[in-house]
């Protein structure tokens, strides 16, 4: 039981993002956790180990010797039918990279909390979205939490989604390193019964079974490789309606609204920002002030990043005059940073579409301040007014 104030069937508590994720994992009654500590994720695995060692959670904690082994062990564990969790960050995810693709292709439901952190070099322990972006093509469903509440809620939903037989893909829940991983906020946690009802024990389709021996992970040559990938692609895309349904179900259960995208002021916005993660709140905070000044601005944030909510995004953005896409990362030599490229291609087929500017910001934990958000809105407003993109890509908050 979380200590806090009882509000109906939920409890209002103060927790950091890492604690909230660990608590969600505990309530999800996970079977196996294989992880390697890395700042700023470490507290998640420490908390889970505490739960296990204090007898509050009946699970196996495999304290592996590397992230590569962490995800390898997760795949093995998931193939037995167990409910499996891991957590990592930045370099750790980079070390897992090879195995991410295998987890997805093997259709092993694994939930990963990713405390977003900049990739080296130079080494840095603070937030960038480099890590999440670097694995965007690996076939993992990815969510971005905006605050600690969402980190908690999305973790529980991630298990349900990953294990749903219409999905069967691993899921990453992103939470901004330090900003959310170590940030303490008020949140509502569900009672255990509600979580159990929403998330019953996993019902695996195929498992490692001596009575029913199967071969997992065979060699597939050019005669079949493409068929496998086509099947995987189809399954990944088809997971979208299942994800939507589960988000809706959880929304009903929790009273908190979950959907692939969140919008603010988009009914009449002429200029908008598209953001991921904890910056969404900051962007809305500034947008409110600007709207008080009569500026028609809006904010779109993505809760679901993969599969990319292309249609929803296009629907809310097509009539906007100008959009600044905010990237907490940089893609060397690309036409824009990662989210920018996604948004640009999502809009390409639209008859009407906004002018697009890409803003690179917040790298390595550089604070995304209200001033920076305002600057981004001003660029969007100016672009909307002039009908002309002055600079396709800008860097915010850099000397």
């Amino acid at each position: 039981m979380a200590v806090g104030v009882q509000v109906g069937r939920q409890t209002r508590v103060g927790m950091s993002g890492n604690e909230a994720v660990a608590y969600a994992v505990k309530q999800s009654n996970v079977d196996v956790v294989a992880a390697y500590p890395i700042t700023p994720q470490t507290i998640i695995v420490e908390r889970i180990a505490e739960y296990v060692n204090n007898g509050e959670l009946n699970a196996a904690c495999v304290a592996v010797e590397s992230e590569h082994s962490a995800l390898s062990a997760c795949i093995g564990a998931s193939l037995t039918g167990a409910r499996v969790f891991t957590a990592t960050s930045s370099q750790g995810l980079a070390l897992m990279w090879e195995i991410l693709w295998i987890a997805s292709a093997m259709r092993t439901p694994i939930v990963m909390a990713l405390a977003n952190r900049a990739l080296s070099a130079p080494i840095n322990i603070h937030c960038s979205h480099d890590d999440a972006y670097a694995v965007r093509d690996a076939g993992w469903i990815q969510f971005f939490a905006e605050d600690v509440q969402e980190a908690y809620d999305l973790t529980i939903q991630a298990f349900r989604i990953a294990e749903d037989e219409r999905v069967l893909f691993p899921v990453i829940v992103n939470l901004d390193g330090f900003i959310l991983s170590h940030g303490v906020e008020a949140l509502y946690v569900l009672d255990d019964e509600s979580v159990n009802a929403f998330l019953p024990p996993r019902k695996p389709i195929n498992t490692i079974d001596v009575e029913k021996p199967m071969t997992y992970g065979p060699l597939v040559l050019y005669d079949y490789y493409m068929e496998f990938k086509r099947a995987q692609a189809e399954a990944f895309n088809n997971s979208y309606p299942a994800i939507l349904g589960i988000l809706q179900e959880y929304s009903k259960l929790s009273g908190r609204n979950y959907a692939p995208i969140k919008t603010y002021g988009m009914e009449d916005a002429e200029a908008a920002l598209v953001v991921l993660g904890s910056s969404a709140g900051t962007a809305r905070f500034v947008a409110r002030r600007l709207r008080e000044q009569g500026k028609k601005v809006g904010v779109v944030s993505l809760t679901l990043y993969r599969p990319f909510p292309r249609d929803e995004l296009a629907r809310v953005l097509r009539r906007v005059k100008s959009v600044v896409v905010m990237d907490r990362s940089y893609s060397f030599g690309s036409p824009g940073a990662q989210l920018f490229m996604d948004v640009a291609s999502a809009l390409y087929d639209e008859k009407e579409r906004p002018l697009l500017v890409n803003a690179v910001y917040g790298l390595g934990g550089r604070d995304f301040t209200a001033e920076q958000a305002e600057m981004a809105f001003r660029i969007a407003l100016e672009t909307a007014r002039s009908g002309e993109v002055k600079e396709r890509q800008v860097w915010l908050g850099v000397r």
Partner: protein
Amino acid sequence: MSSLLSWRDLGIGCVISEPGNSVQYKTGDWRAHRPVIDQTKCIKCLLCWVYCPEPAITRHNDDRVEINYDYCKGCGICANECPVKAIKMVSEGV
């Protein structure tokens, strides 16, 4: 394989659900020489059965051994290891 499956026919994940179905894949045609057992010399020591890498040597209930030419790749280990020289390698011909 007579006809290749489409992506729609594949199971979930990367799985082969039929254990040991490689028996459908005959490797006998890899062979240039075939082992032939002289059953009159055979002492049923089973070494050929143990050492066969395929396995392409059948061990019968009475420990009589028999080559399964569907799979035998003709490596000749059995002939080389037979302690009583009961197995001879014979050319398959061209």
